[in-house]
């Protein structure tokens, strides 16, 4: 099976600068705007800054949820949106446990992180990295990063009304 990769951030290192957010919206949408970005940055006290990406779930509830069959996993293991099929119903938005897929306000189509790495290269704090579940467990031996994500999941992954 292909290793499922995803981008993950260290909330103790991330400075909250939103450079990743801007890079992504500029790279894919040619504008600056957090609502057009595939990554969100959430600042929480005390001293935490979370850069939040698609976690590339093995069971990918977003794929399951889409009534149009617009979401699929590529041979490289990336969950992508087929814009021809996507009609913006937002069932995926509801289904995603990580609030990581959204309807782009301009195109009306779903957008999510596709693990391209553009933002990783430009993060000034080196706070984000491409990883797999196994690699992350290795890197985060004492479970610090995961615990922080887990502890704050209510604030990080609120259920939003779909656009």
């Amino acid at each position: 099976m292909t290793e499922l990769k995803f981008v993950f951030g260290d909330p103790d290192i991330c400075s909250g600068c939103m450079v990743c957010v801007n890079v992504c919206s500029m790279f894919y949408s040619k504008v600056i705007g957090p609502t057009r970005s595939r990554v969100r940055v959430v600042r929480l006290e005390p001293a935490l800054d979370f850069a939040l990406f698609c976690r590339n779930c093995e069971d990918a509830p977003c794929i399951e949820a889409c009534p149009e069959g617009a979401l699929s996993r590529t041979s490289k293991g990336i969950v992508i949106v087929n814009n021809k099929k996507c009609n913006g119903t937002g069932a995926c938005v509801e289904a995603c446990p990580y609030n990581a897929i959204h309807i782009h306000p301009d195109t009306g189509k779903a957008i999510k992180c596709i693990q391209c790495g553009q933002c990783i290269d430009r993060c000034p704090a080196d706070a984000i990295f491409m990883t797999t579940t196994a690699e992350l467990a290795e890197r985060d031996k004492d479970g610090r990063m995961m615990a922080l994500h887990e502890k704050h999941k209510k604030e990080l992954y609120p259920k939003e009304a779909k656009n």
Partner: protein
Amino acid sequence: MFGVGGEILWVDMTKGKIEKVPIDEELVNKYLLGAGYLSKILYDMIPAGTDPLGKKNILGIATGLLTGSMFPQASRHVVAALSPLTDVWGESHAAGFFGAELKFAGYDAIMFTGASSDPLYLNIEDSKVELLDASHLWGKDVFETDDILRKDHDRQFRTLSIGQAGENLVRFSAIMNDRDRASARSGLGAVMGSKKIKAVSVKGTGKLEVADPKNYLKQMDIFYERMMANPFTPGRVKYGTTSLVEMMQHIGRLPSYNMKQGVFDGYEKISGEAINEKYLVKARADFSCLQRCGRYTAVRKGPYAFEGGSPEFETQSSMGSRCGNDNLESILFGHHLANQYGMDTISLGGTISWAMEAWDEGLLTAEDTGGIDLSWGNAETIIKLTKMIALREGFGDVLADGSAAAAERIGRGTEKFVMTVKKQEIAGQEPRAQKSMGLAAVTAARGADHLYAFPVLDEAGFDKEIKERFGEQYLPEMADRLNPKYKGIMVKECEDFMVMVESVGLCKYGTQIPPEFYYDDIALTLKIHNGLNFTGNQLQEIGERIVNLNRLFNARFGVTRKDDCLPDRLTKEKAPLGPSAGEVVELDQMLTEYYDVRGWDQETGLPLKETLERLGLDYE
């Protein structure tokens, strides 16, 4: 125009009316946005005789042309009004996320006119803009206000607010945003308080379209690489501004004991290194910021326990060395408290240190202070007074008007310990150790200020930049911090550049120190971001125009050369100790050179007719 919100909100607090007006592109061509735009609007609308805390004063909050862009450190907004501390031009800036968010909501500025009788806050959600009841927020501190607003709306809102100090019209109260970002100088929190504006909350779901999307990211990559490769960046990340304590001690520029001297025995205890060793939790950044000078610290136990955004060099000096205080935990906590109540730590520490010197000289007694002991270095007193000032309790009420007003009230010769220019406390640059800072404090439109010019090119071996920006002929004198020669030329140039930077919404870090980005870089960015065609020279001329307009504003309130002065201590008494011992500020010599390059009259210190004509300014 690309890259902007597009509209300005005019909020009439008296009538509770809100109007949306498109930004005036003609004004942008002459003044850019941010500080320049506000300079023009307020110049046109605030007549002589206006009461800074009355209905007729106008409070502007504006983003720059590049605020919200991807340019390094494009996070800033500016606030301006007639200042209740100085009674002249008042202006202050902060970073954070508020400015970018305002732009994403579709607005570049908010202008508050009139005054409400009941507390209100302005809530902005894209096109929905409303004034809401703030009675439940009045009396709350800055952090509580942020918590409540983001709970009531949603946590993605960004807030700007005043704490109790602004409500109580403390004349050096700040306007805070994003919890621990402060537009602190000039006392504009009190203007907000006088209008009964508790806060602005904003959420914007919009976008900024840029003029040249094709080349945008490519060009930003070049700027990012330059910023990251600059030798200053790692140090900025590591220490923020806190290690300036060590550096300033080293050159005798660390104001100590109310500026009696520029060296402090306890400097190591309050240094950047000391903070990193025990208290630093994290370096934090604002929108688009690559340098992360923001400090998040924690004191885990004892009377000064807290955690939050703190400190900045200015506070280490104002609440530390300036008060003879080497208790670092009290300084970190004091900064945090000042954020919480919404106060300028420079004027706060400056005012307390004035009182401490007066006490030391026996001119203030326990009878004046209500029994509070004002001995040098009494950390407990500093913290106690911080609260009492914010709440205007007891002796705190006297200090809440700033050191100049307090000395006038107390009299008895305490006036000579007032370290202000135009009634604003001088910041953490003992000018006898860096002459350009003395001149800059005097010429700054908002009263004593190191940032209006931010003349740091003579501070740390920027000979190469001096050569590039001015020309070889000015070396070595211009680079010598103790030599008054060419400092008029330097301060003029720095002012023009810095007000321009404040008008595009960039940080002084990255433009002035380190001097990485200059006019041409900004001109290029205005082109690809906003689609505006300015040359570097035109931008310089705009800066010059803004400085002259600020001067005309001050002239309307009576400012002339006689007000461009420093306390006698700095011009007449030789620095007693340290590496700059024996120095005084040769102010007159520098000022004469400055007026000369400015095209201002030597006697009045006001712009000459031909200067105004050249800059396309009308004169009264």
